[in-house]
Each structure stands twice: as C-alpha cells, then as structure tokens.
C-alpha cells in the first residue's frame, strides 16, 4: 500500500476537478473532484446510477464534461475523441469488449497500429510482440487464436494486453468481474497486481465489495452523481462503504402505503429459467406493491421477461388470480392479463415513429375491433381518457412519440398497458430519467392500480423509490431471491447489503 502522508511531492497522475455532466432530464455527475495517485488501484463504488460509468466515459474521452477539467500529471487536458485519451495513455476496458471476434488475438491488439515490414504487415513481429505481452501478464493464450473462440475471461485479458500495448499508464475498468467465475476473478486480481507492479494506475468500477477490499488501495464513493468521499481501504469497513453509498434524507414524498392487503394476485412457485434464475418463489397480493431490488445483472429484468413470456421458463408454476398461466410468448402473457413496462422505453417500449394514439392502442387492438375493423371512436375515447388521467402533455394524439419528453413517453407506455386491462403489471425502472412531476404522478398511479386489485411488481435501482413505494421488498442476487423485507421496516443499507452479499448473517453465495 502506498503511503501518501509523507511524500509532499506527490502529484496525482490523474486529477478530476469539478466535473459536471448532465443529460436531458438527469444530472449524471455534479461537481465531482478527486485524485488518483500513480501506481495505485483505485476503486470507484456506488449504486446503479451513481455516475460511475459516466465518469469513466469522460475519462476515456467518449464524453466531454459540461463543466470541470481533467488533469494528467498536473497538466489540464481536454479529450475530444477517445483516440486522444488513448494517445495520452488512458485505456478503457468496457463491459462489452471492443474486440473483433473474427480476428486473432494479435490482430485485435495491433488493430490500427500494425507493425510493417516494407509494404506488408509484419505478421511475425505482431505475433512475437503479442506473445511477449501475454507472457508478461503470465497468461497462456495463443496469439493466433480467434478472439471469438476465447472465453470471456480470456477476451478480457486480450483487452488488457491491448491496453498495455498502447503504453497505457492508466487503465480504466468497468465492472471487470461481472461475467467471470470465481476462479477467473482470482486470475484477474493477479493480473491487476501485476499491472500495478509495472507502475500502472488502475481505476475500476465494481459492485463486489470483496474484490474492492482484496485489491484496491483507495476507494472513491459516488452517490447520485456527487462525490462522497475518497479513503484508503485500510481505514474503512464494508459496513462503512455501504452506509456511505446509500442513506439519504427521504425528501421525496411517496403515496401512502397499502391499507388492506387481500388474496394473492400472482403466485410464483419454484421458478427456474435458463441456467440463471433459480428456485424463485414469491407472491404479490391484492392491494400491495412488491418491489424487486438488486444489482445490475442479478436477474431482475430476466425474471420480469420470464413472467411476460419473453424468456422460456424451465420449470415452475405461475398463478394469476387463481388461474395457472403458461405464457410462451408476450401475446399469451398479454391475453392472460400480464403487462410489462420495459426499462428501455425508446427501444422496447415505444415505436418512436408512430403516433401517441397508435402506440397506446397497440397491445389492445383486439379489444376494439370487429372482424379486424377498428372501432375508431372507441379507440379515440380510450386514448383521450387515458391521456387525460395520466396527464400526457402533447398537442394532440397524432404527435409522434419521438417528440415527447421522457416523462410523457413513459406515460404513453403506461397508458398502452392500462388499455389492456392487465391484472398484473411489471414495471422495470418506471421512473428512470423522468422529471420529478411525472415521477410523482406515475407513483400515484401505481398505488391506485394496486388499490384497485391490479398486481404491481416494481423493479427499481432507486433505493428511496423502492423503500418509499413498496409494501414488501424482494432482493435478488445472482439469479436467486436472497432476502425479503417489509417496506416499512427496511433501510437502504439493509437492501444494499443483501444485494451485494454483505449481510452479517448471510448465507454464502451458492456457486453459480
């Protein structure tokens, strides 16, 4: 571990000063400032949406900050393009690798910088240099192997080798262990230590606090786009981290919770899907809102899609209002009374080129037709009523969905499912990227629906929202339901601990 207190000449290799970045409707980063020291492993930690990925993208040159500067070796820099960051010695390894599966390891590493011998590419030199790189990392990968034939962990090594060949002195990693087995994680940790031994600075995002403690020298915590703290790992505990990551003043008001809870609307019994979701059982009762919390990749959306017929169910029973259902397709799910508000409203929730009316009417067309002939006035009426009750703000029903604000778009998505008179509505991140006013009305709507007897299942990464809205909270991790909390009694810390697996009395994670 590097001792910083003595060395007064220690200029940080990377300084982030007052960086702010906003997107329409949301502030991703607000005045974030901290330093990275040369040769340290610096972890970046925070909930989903805390701003970590955005920060990494700014460091790698993919985004430009709206305000603030970056400084390398004490000198201010501006990156207009990822290649400039690369030239400055910063390499980034994304979760979705930037590799060409149909080219060899050597060809991928040297793409754009092929060594030449006369007019030809020096393949031998490429192979040699690649082999040398891989050797220095102490991994056995054939430089002539096709990248597409490698395991994910090996592809990651290729990305790291690529960074090395670019003479990077700062390597950024975005959730590097998300897709690795325990064994492979160990290897990666060793690699990271090797990089550090060469004096390379590593800044990496991870949710897995075990790893953070195993490998990092210092940790920076971001929350809601704000910098919280930067500390040496030696000075914090796991509980400290979780406490600092979450925990806010509940300044948003949520609708009051359920008064009467009735019979089960949805019963899920021993659901197994693919190799991923294991033995999931829970119920949603009439009048209650059930929230599903968990880290990205824990299987929440997968579960939602399985309930909606968009993923093939391995085994298990689904019961909706007492009737067993087997949705093999979204059509069957919709006919059975299930609706799914996807988290990606632009690509999955709406046809952006179609009008508000067309979008709203789409899943429920069969309800307002005779022999295929659409009952136009009935449809107009439905659309108008829904728009009014949801307060959709647009000039008229013919406006194309692409011209609406995020909040209004989400309302159109909601409206279209309401028009199907669904008995169970699954919301995936219902208020992400939406302004406060629209958020409030969507929340109120969800509560009204629950009170009316519609089953409401809500996936959210927004802890205040989960706690404020849910009567019961289920936490998922690695494809299983690991905890259940009553909404009233839960705290952000408890939920985050369950999601990251740091509960004091946790069961050891079953080998996945």
């Amino acid at each position, binding site marked *: 571990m590097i001792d910083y207190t003595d060395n007064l000449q220690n200029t940080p290799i990377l300084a982030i000063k007052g960086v702010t970045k906003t997107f329409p409707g949301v502030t991703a980063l607000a005045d974030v400032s901290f330093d990275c020291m040369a040769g340290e492993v610096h972890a970046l930690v925070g909930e989903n949406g805390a701003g970590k990925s955005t920060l990494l993208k700014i460091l790698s040159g993919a985004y430009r900050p709206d305000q603030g500067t970056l400084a390398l070796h004490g000198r201010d820099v501006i990156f207009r393009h990822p290649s400039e960051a690369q030239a400055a010695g910063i390499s980034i390894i994304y979760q979705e690798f930037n590799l060409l599966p149909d080219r060899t390891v050597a060809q991928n590493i040297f793409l754009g910088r092929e060594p030449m011998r006369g007019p030809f590419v020096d393949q031998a030199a490429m192979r040699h240099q690649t082999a040398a790189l891989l050797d220095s990392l102490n991994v056995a990968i054939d430089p002539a192997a096709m990248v597409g034939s490698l395991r994910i962990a090996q592809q990651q090594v290729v990305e790291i080798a690529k960074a090395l060949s670019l003479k990077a002195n700062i390597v950024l990693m975005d959730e590097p262990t998300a897709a690795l087995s325990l064994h492979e994680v160990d290897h990666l940790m060793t690699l990271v230590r090797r990089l550090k031994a060469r004096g390379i600075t590593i800044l990496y995002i991870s949710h897995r606090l075990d790893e953070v403690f195993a490998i990092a020298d210092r940790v920076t915590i971001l929350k809601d786009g704000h910098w919280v703290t930067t500390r040496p790992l030696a000075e914090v505990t796991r509980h400290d981290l979780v406490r600092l990551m979450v925990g806010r003043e509940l300044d948003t008001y949520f609708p009051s919770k359920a008064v009467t809870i009735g019979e089960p609307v949805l019963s899920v019994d021993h659901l197994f899907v693919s190799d991923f979701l294991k033995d999931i059982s829970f119920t949603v009762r009439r009048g209650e809102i059930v929230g599903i919390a968990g880290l990205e990749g824990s299987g929440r959306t997968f579960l939602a899609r399985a309930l*909606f017929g*968009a993923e093939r169910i391995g085994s298990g029973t689904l019961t909706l209002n007492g009737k067993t259902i087997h949705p093999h*397709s*979204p*059509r069957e*799910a*919709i*006919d059975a009374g299930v609706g*799914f508000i*996807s988290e990606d409203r632009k*690509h*999955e*929730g*709406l*046809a*952006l*080129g*179609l009008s*508000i009316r*067309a979008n709203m*009417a*789409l*899943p429920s*067309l*069969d309800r307002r*037709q005779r022999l*295929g*002939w*659409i009952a*136009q006035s009935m449809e107009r009426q439905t*659309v*108008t009523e829904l*728009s*009014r009750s949801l*307060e*959709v*703000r*647009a*000039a*008229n*029903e013919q*406006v*194309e969905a692409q*011209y*609406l*604000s995020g909040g*209004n778009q989400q309302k159109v998505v909601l409206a*279209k499912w309401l028009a199907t008179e669904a008995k169970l509505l699954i919301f995936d991140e219902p208020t992400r990227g939406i302004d406060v006013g629209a958020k409030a009305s969507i929340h109120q709507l969800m509560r009204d629906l629950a009170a009316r007897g519609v089953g409401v299942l809500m996936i959210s990464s927004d802890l205040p929202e989960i706690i404020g809205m849910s009567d019961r909270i289920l936490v998922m991790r690695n494809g299983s339901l690991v905890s259940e909390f009553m909404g009233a009694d839960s705290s952000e810390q408890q939920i985050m601990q369950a999601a990251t697996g740091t509960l004091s009395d946790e069961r050891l994670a079953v080998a996945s």
Partner: protein
Amino acid sequence: MQGSTSTLGAVQRSPSPLDRLRRIPIIYIVLLIVLILIGLRNPNFYQPLALLAFLKRNAAIVLVTMGQMAVITAGELDLSVGALISVCAAVSAKVINNGEGTVLEAFAWVFGTGAVVGLANGILTTRFKVPSFVTTLGMWLIAQGTISIITRGAEIGGVTDDFRVFGRMNVAGTSIPIALVILIGVAAAGGILLYATTFGRRLYAVGSNPVAAALAGINVSRIKTIAFLMSSLSGALAAILLVGYAGVSSLTVGQGYEFQSISAVVLGGVALAGGRGSLWGAIAGALTLQALFALMNFLSLPLPIRLTVQGVIIIGAVAFASSRMKLGIRRT
C-alpha cells in the same frame, strides 16, 4: 420539440393556410409539376380518352407499387415481383392454351403461383432469417428460370379474349377501363386494410420497431409474411392485367417492375427502413414516375433512360430521407 402545456386534445391555434401547404407531402406537388410539364409539351394528354388510356396502361405498375409499399412498410423488400409477373403470364398462357383451359382455371393457377411465392418469401425471411433482399433476389432467379421450364422454349398457346378482358376492355357501355376499376377497388381495399384494420396498425408497428412490436404481443413473422403475400398477389393480379393489355407475345412482361415499384414507393415518401409513409403517397409516386416516363417519351428521349431516372431517384430519395432524419427534421 416539447408538447404544449395543455393536455392532449386542446387545440392551440388553427394552422394557417401556409402551414397547411407546408404539410402536404412533397410528392403531390412533384406530381402536379410533372403533369403540368406534360401538358405544356403535349396538351393532347389531357383528353379524357388519353388520360384513361394512361391509367389503363399503368394500372399494373400501380398495383405492384401498392404491394411493394406493404412489404417496405413492414421493413423488408421484394425484388422477386418482376419475375413473378412473367411467370404468371407464362402460367396463364399455358393453362388457357388457346381455349383448352378456362379463365377460372387460369386465375386459380396464377393466384396460386403468387401465393406460393409470397409464402416462400415470407417464411425464408422470417423463419430462416435470410435478409429479404437475398431471399427475393434468389426467388427472382428461380422464377426467371422457371419461365423457360414452363414454356420449354417452344411456342405455348395464347390466351383467349375472355381472359384478356380485364386488362384490355372497358366497362360495358362506358369508356372506363375495367383495369382502372380494379385498380381503384384494390386501392380502396388497401387503404381500408392499412388504415382501418388492426392488421394495418400492426404492419406499421412491425416496420417502425419490430422489438417493441413483439413485446406488444404482435406476431412479427406472420405480419411480414402477409406483407410478402400482398406483394406477390398484387403481382399476380398485375400479370393478369398486363397479359390482357399486351398479350403474351413477350415473356418478359414483368421486367423491371421490382425496381420501378421500389423507385415509386421511395419517391412517394415511404421510408425504406419501414414504419412510415402512406399508401396514397406510394400511388402518387407510381403515377409521377410513369408521368415522368411519358414526359421523357414526349421529349423523344430514348427508352432506356428511364432506368437512369429510376437509379437517380432511388439513391436521391434514400440519401435525402437519411439526411433529414439526421437533422431531426420532422416530416408530416
């Protein structure tokens, strides 16, 4: 562009006449201009009989354009229709064979052929995930080859006058061509299908965003296959009209119809990517294209120059549309 602060349905102010003018899709204006130019060059074009003859002559291509519009709106492409028309012509001649077969039998065979091709296009594209331009290109080749297999090089019998009625004759006692009546009928049916039925809504949704459409419970494969069927069947009907009008003297009756229909559709403002554009625009595009060709005729330009015009239109229209999308310009 945000909506107003009032809720849905509240009208701010009535659009001014200039606004209304600006919202007319550009194809109608182009059509008007071309018609005017023709009139300047050859005023005889506007004699009612001449106009009706123009419409009769071009009923087939307008039909094919409508079918192509359905496929393109669904996000696909049908390059097989030209060869399909030729096959249908050969089939009709072979079945009728100077009177051996009846008109009804010929219809059954012709529409049957259309149905088979349409289904094949649909299944290959949706089930086997072959890109539609490859599927329909391959189908074009297969159809072309099949023509000679049907005729076996030898002379096949011609079609009877009974069969040719639809493409050639007028409604009894009037000067209105039957072909025009058929065209209007199909256009009306098409309009109803696209704008008043659930199928039409689903077709647009599939072309606009197939992922969202699937998640809304739409059977994307079925919709696309039906669109391919619509294109092939309109091709079969077009073949009947063409054989009526031109006889079976040449077995290349349908040649070039796929490119003409695509040019017309694109000219009419239908997005090549799918999900956007109107049937009426496509029809106007077809009429504009044929009017352009007529104009080129009157200007004594050589016949093949039509191909060049189509090529320029196809590239121009797509480049234009993609540049507008990039600038985020709204298109009514």
